[in-house]
């Protein structure tokens, strides 16, 4: 190949790599075209659910801080003030969720937040991982203090933008839960109820195995499933690969006190 051809190929390549980088930034940090809903708000301007503009058209609500770092460096002065951040959620239960700032090292961080019951559907709609497509939703949080044993801040959710409230899952007859996320959110109330989820089998012992649900969840995404001797063959047939998840019906028995891990009893592997 002569120098001219190599130069042309390199130029094309550079353009391609540029487009690729631009594409990846679009996927990792821009908005999708979902409609926008805002919750009832203590902050000012953006209660515009009816107009349903594109997310980027809804202006940022008024807030005292736009990054966790800014709030942290203000120390106790930040308490009582509001922070606007783009967030995804980690551990989530009926009243609290850990929000992670969608930013890079130095601008990231997390804080534990409380939320009211009326915001549960909106909290559920916050992605439980950094979204591959679209951009993290905006959340306004009132800083209420600092964690006891760390320098991390804690707060309460005031407003969630850029997401539509999560709809209730459709449940098959006799089933109370079809996602680990809902089980985590309901906490101990889920004990004694039936969950049916696509999952695969992890570590297996004589009387129990670790089940890994194949859906996304804010927080823990596994549970320990006990089985009886006559269910051994059923367990052995259960897939051990996340690429071949199977519908498993489990009766939730108890939630461990400190780890919040769920225990359940195998009911059946549902034939599809």
């Amino acid at each position, binding site marked *: 190949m002569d*120098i001219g051809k190599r130069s042309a190929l*390199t130029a094309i390549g*550079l353009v391609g790599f540029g487009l690729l980088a*631009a594409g990846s930034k*679009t996927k990792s940090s821009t908005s999708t075209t979902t409609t926008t809903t805002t919750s009832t708000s203590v902050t000012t301007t953006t209660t515009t659910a009816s107009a349903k503009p594109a997310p980027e058209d809804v202006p940022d609500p008024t807030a005292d801080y736009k990054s966790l770092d800014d709030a942290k460096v203000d120390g106790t002065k930040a308490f009582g003030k509001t922070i606007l951040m783009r967030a995804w959620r980690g551990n989530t239960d009926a009243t609290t969720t850990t929000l992670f700032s969608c*930013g*890079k090292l130095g*601008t990231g961080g997390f804080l534990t937040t409380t939320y009211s019951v009326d915001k549960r559907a909106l909290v559920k709609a916050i992605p439980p991982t950094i979204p*591959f497509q679209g951009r993290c939703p905006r959340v306004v949080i009132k800083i209420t203090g600092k964690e006891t044993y760390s320098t991390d801040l804690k707060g309460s959710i005031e407003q969630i933008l850029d997401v539509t409230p999560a709809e209730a899952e459709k449940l098959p007859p006799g089933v109370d839960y079809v996602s680990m996320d809902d089980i985590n959110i309901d906490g101990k109330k889920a004990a004694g109820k039936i969950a049916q989820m696509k999952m695969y089998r992890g570590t297996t012992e004589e009387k129990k195995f670790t089940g890994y649900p194949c859906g996304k969840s804010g927080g823990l995404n596994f549970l320990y499933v006990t089985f009886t001797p006559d269910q051994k063959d059923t367990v052995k047939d259960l897939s051990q690969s996340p690429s071949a998840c199977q519908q498993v019906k489990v009766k939730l028995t108890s939630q461990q006190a400190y780890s919040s891990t769920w225990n359940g009893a195998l009911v059946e592997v549902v034939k599809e």
Partner: protein
Amino acid sequence: MVRAVKKRVVVAFLTIALPLVLGAASYVVRARLPLVLGGHFADGAWGFALGAFVALVWMGEKSSVRALWIAIAATFAAVWECLQYAHVVRGVFDPVDLVVQTSAVLVAAWVVGVIGGMKRWTLESEAR
């Protein structure tokens, strides 16, 4: 000759396609990655693929010409990150990204250079 072409395709796959695939995959599993990996792996993989591409295209040329193009690729990677700072392209400027992706270009060029130094890998050596 055919064997050399096949080997070059393999090298291109390993040093260009694979890093790009892994970089893209890192977005999917970002939440499960340590923060350092989650934030910078994709940028490093992109820089590596870019450096490998340029180094492969210019493999067999005079080292001064190769070095010039690799320098252009590294500058391209650095400028791309700086354009984020200037809000000319989308994304968040991060000095660590600047270092990671520029270094990745140079590392990839070095890796491909080492591979290219093994005569059996080059088209020219087989053609002789």
